[in-house]
């Protein structure tokens, strides 16, 4: 139910805000992990699940920042680039992992926009990757 309401809100928001123009879309979600930032960062670098969907562009150790691009092509969004950052949590044994994705819808010409190629579809599809992705990564780190 929650998910349906959320999707409806996302669709409503997207049609209101971005009915025209080649506007980049943004999905940004965070998860708190019960492990130090250093441990979480090391785990991220060795985590193979993300690399099934994305290719690593770079790992910046100093900033604890990873950059990715997409491998998958059969997706309802385009020009996808993402970064995952590890930040300090409330204490030494807590970290916050933030995933920011930037992408466009697949249809970039004049409206009307065909069904399934609009901003709302693209946002919903990326959310399907980011949300469960972060949950899976949290489980993996906390079970180590």
């Amino acid at each position, binding site marked *: 139910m929650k998910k349906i309401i959320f999707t409806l809100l996302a669709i409503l928001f997207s049609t209101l*805000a*971005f009915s025209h123009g080649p506007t980049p879309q943004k999905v940004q979600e965070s998860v708190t992990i019960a492990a130090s930032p250093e441990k979480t960062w090391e785990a991220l670098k060795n985590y193979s699940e993300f690399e099934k969907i994305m290719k690593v562009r770079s790992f910046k150790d100093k900033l604890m920042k990873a950059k990715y691009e997409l491998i998958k092509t059969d997706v309802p969004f385009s020009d996808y680039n993402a970064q995952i950052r590890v930040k300090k949590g409330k204490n030494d044994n807590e970290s916050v992992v933030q995933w*920011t994705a930037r992408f466009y819808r697949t249809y970039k010409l004049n409206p009307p926009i065909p069904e399934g190629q609009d901003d709302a579809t693209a946002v919903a599809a990326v959310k399907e990757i980011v949300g469960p992705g972060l949950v899976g990564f949290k489980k993996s780190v906390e079970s180590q």
Partner: protein
Amino acid sequence: MVKQKKLSIFSLKTSIFFILTFFLIILYFYFSSYFEVNNVSKAYITNQGDNTVSIIDLETLKTLKTLKVGVAPLGITILQKKKLVFVGNVGTDDISVIDAVNDTLIKTIKLGTAPLSLASNPEEAEIYVTDWFQNNVLTISADEMKVTHRLKVGVTPSGIAYNKKYKYQVITNRDANTLEIYNEDCNLVKKIETGNHPFGVFSEGDFAYVANVYDDSVSIINLVDWSKYEFMVGAHPYNVKVHNKTAYVTNTIDDTITIYDLGTKKIIKILDTGETPENLDFNIKQNLLVVTNWGSDSISIFDTESFRHIKEIKTGSQSRSFGDFILQ
């Protein structure tokens, strides 16, 4: 005799007093205008994600105001002398005009098409707007506050710059990998090939500078003999601007700025910014470089002399400001 001498001393003192007072009054007026709010340099940041413009005082580095504009604001330009800020809203197909003295919205100009980027011609008090979908460049008269001309251009017009020296409108055609140059009579002077996916453009003197997003490079095009050369920057450059014979380029994927010396043709510095830096502009008086960070919803401020990072300031959601966004 004695009386007369005393009198003359008195009058000398009086005249010195009056002269000093006169100078103090002059000084007061001179400096009071300097301290007026109207003369404060400000940055206007379009926040595409929440339909606002953040107005930041570049002396105190504090946010003065967050102004509601149209839907999905992106492009921006400023008529410095008239103190007017023009913001293009791609969601509502219009331009919000902000009076930069009081920072209030004074007018909404309907376009009927999505404005992607804006540039200004200060001599004619005109604004040029690229229309991505219908392949036009619209002219807006700042005196009439309406569209006065539509120029048909090549496909996917994206970035636009106005070259004061030649009175040229310089436009990137993103999906055609070309740069188009139009003169003041709206005639095409030249169509020249760029790198792959040209987006942001800057033009000054005899040159145009283009950011080639998919080539990770910048093309420099000579507007006299049409020769060109390229230099490499970071990943996915979005915009380029020149300040003191130095080119500054935003690398959206690297979260950096490449600083390139146009004289020695060498990269002199790479600076870390916030996430997904898109656009940049300069405060001339205090030598500040301001960068908009789409990813971290903020701006990064640097000193252009020492390249020192001064401050990161939170703005609204998805800060972009594609164009000139600093009131000097």
